[in-house]
């Protein structure tokens, strides 16, 4: 197990390096630091001096990959790539355009983000799996048919509408919860309950349909017929056998959801004014703050890879046949 973990961690390094190189290429090869300086300072009335000063202040006045003017290791380390990208591996993300330390921002914002994303994810998964199991239980009936129709309709609605209508109905008309804002500790509940609920509802359509297909596929297998043949009730078959055996595909599907979770939170946080990573990213995009976007891409891929590893580990919990030797 330990050896497997180490191997997976070692495998993550080249991927993160690839992500790093890719974003670096996106940000610095397509556009030169001069372009970025002009962008930040305003395209008109910009002097070469101002550009040079902007670049020097932020460390963009060095060569991209190789610094011939330096000696020894500094040939490689005194470059933009090393300063801006390679140092992300040790958690040094540099400073945003407004001068604030990005790493500290991330550390304070990861709390609210988790407080929103985790309940959305867990509650969503529970609701989806139970409804999908119910539909699989009543398969072929009218309830099943209309359930699937409802799912298709629900997945045809843009998540923006769920948020806009939800916020309008529950906050503005019914005044049940505040429209936006955030508080620390337990008082965060009243700010989080609506975004979590909307996040769960917005994801229901497509995932219920997906899990229903998964369960139906499992039900068609031989062992289920055997279980029925020996006289087990349909409920026992579903919960004891089908659900257990469908765990691996469910867990695999969960990983697919993790990056979407990020996207969902992005919208949710900016609509509900939750000071998390998502709203930070949107603000950075609107302010065209490249350092922050780059840092968020890095964090995002780290989370994704961590999610992949967690999934692999959870396989061993649900299926003892899976071993990592």
């Amino acid at each position, binding site marked *: 197990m330990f050896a497997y973990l180490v191997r997976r961690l070692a495998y993550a390094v080249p991927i993160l390096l*690839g992500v790093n190189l890719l974003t670096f290429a996106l940000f610095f090869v397509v*556009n030169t630091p001069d372009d970025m300086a002009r962008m930040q300072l305003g395209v008109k009335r910009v002097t070469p001096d101002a550009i040079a000063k902007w670049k020097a202040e932020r460390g963009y006045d060095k060569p991209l990959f190789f610094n011939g003017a330096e000696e020894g290791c500094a040939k490689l380390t005194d470059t933009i790539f090393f300063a801006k990208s390679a140092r992300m591996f040790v958690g040094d993300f540099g400073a945003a355009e407004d001068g604030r330390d990005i790493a500290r921002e991330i550390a304070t914002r990861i709390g609210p983000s988790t407080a929103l994303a985790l309940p959305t994810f867990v509650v969503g998964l529970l609701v989806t799996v139970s409804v999908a199991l119910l539909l699989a239980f009543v398969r072929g009936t009218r309830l099943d048919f209309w359930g699937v129709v409802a799912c298709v309709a629900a997945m045809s609605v843009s998540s923006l*509408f769920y948020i806009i209508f939800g916020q309008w109905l529950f906050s503005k008309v019914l005044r049940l919860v505040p429209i936006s804002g955030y508080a620390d500790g337990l008082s965060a509940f009243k700010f989080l309950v609506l975004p979590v609920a909307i996040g769960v509802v917005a994801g229901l359509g497509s995932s219920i349909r997906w899990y229903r297909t998964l369960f139906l596929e499992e039900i068609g297998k031989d062992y289920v017929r055997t279980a029925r043949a020996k006289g087990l009730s349909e409920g026992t078959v579903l919960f004891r056998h089908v659900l257990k055996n469908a765990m691996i595909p469910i867990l695999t599907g969960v990983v697919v959801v993790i990056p979407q979770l990020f*996207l969902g939170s992005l919208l949710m946080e900016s609509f509900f004014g939750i000071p998390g990573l998502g709203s930070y990213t949107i603000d950075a995009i609107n302010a*065209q703050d490249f350092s922050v976007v780059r840092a968020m891409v890095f964090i995002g891929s780290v989370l994704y890879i961590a999610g992949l590893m967690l999934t692999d580990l959870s396989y061993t919990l649900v299926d003892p046949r899976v071993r990592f030797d």
Partner: protein
Amino acid sequence: MPFQPVLLWSDAVLWLLTGLLVALAVVSRRSPPLAAAWRKVGQSRTGMAAATLLTVFALVGLADSLHYRQLLPAAPDKPAAYGVEVLSLLDGALSGLRNHGEKTYSAPLATVSYAMETRTGSDGVQQRDFPPLRFGGAQLSPGDSWAADVAVRGIVGVAAGTLLWWLISTVLLWSSTRGAASGDTIAQIKPWRGFQAIMLKRPPGSFAWDAVLVTLLLICLIAGKLAALASGYHVFGTDKVGQDVLYQVLKSVRTALVIGLVTTLVTLPLGILLGIAAGYFGGWIDDAIQYLYTVLNSIPGVLLIAAAVLMMQVVIDTHPEWFATAAERADLRLLALCFILGFTSWTGLARLLRGEALKLRELDYVQAAQAFGVAPFTILLRHILPNVMHIVIITLVMDFSGLVLSEAVLSYVGIGVDPTTISFGTMINNARMELAREPVVWWSLVAAFAFMFALVLAANLFADAVQAAFDPRRSAQ
């Protein structure tokens, strides 16, 4: 010439795609398994109803993709000049809606403005009331009943819609029975014997004409009513700057289609080529391609898109000399967005095709071809590609609705289409603040919701029908 044709890049790509779809249809006709699968799609009622609706949306989008510049009124002894504004065929057809702007918000079918205004009457007394609209209900003279006018227009519209439906469906049925082979069930239906036969008892296993005709009837009725009302009112009201909302939703259709279709044009070659190559060749090629898509996959999509779009914006902003008109600039940005979306979303298809190619390459006929010394490229083209086509087609139709939905989200986040491009995303974005107004301005949001829902729902239902017909696993059940 009274107009000068303008070919925007996205128009060219969209028409090219339409050509490719026609080519796909021809290929499908010749290949028996594909033809059989498409026949199955044709038998599905929901699938065909959805396809009918999608066709109507596609026609709207294509009409919006023929651009031109109008000839300006001739000035004496000067060469003919064309206007700067790039219009489309749809703009021309909807010139009434496009030009009849109001000052600001007005409710659907309203005759007075939504906001009170202080006006000085003819007697010199100032009073606050709702000023009449410039165009909404302007045909009503004082004393005319608004309700009667709306009712009459509605009835005329419904009647015209029914007539239109009768004409279209007769032509459709007539041409389809002529084209059908003898022995085909549809050939036995005489069009003049009416729609009754088809509606009441469709021959089993035949094309779902009943669904097509019913959907067409609904569309014709709605379109007829909307058109009749739109000639005198703003059916869906107007937005903040007084632009007709119906016009905006119709224009949004093209943006959604471009995003959904052009993106797949980018995705397909990348996904097919890299996916098949990884599966078939294996070894270091497989490793390299797998590494590439793991890297791309591990970046949350929206962030990768955001980063790419930010970069593109810098390029566009630093090179204003590339674009002659604002339309060209917005158009290029739309295309660039499609390319970025395509480059970030080929990974799913590639992974599916890799798995399938891994399986296929072990099959006897491929091994036989290898033993005969057939070149690898020929094997890929002749043996692997035709056998993964069903996956490609399923992915193609499944991705469309997701892309339309993501356009709205991206435009909302500010990394989507150009703010001057009318799209569902920009409409929702503009409408967002209107919900906070008192009283609420709800119509642009509801109109955008309804049209987008219809488009995406149709795409989803059609995708379902295609998947059911093409997926061997599902059709076996």
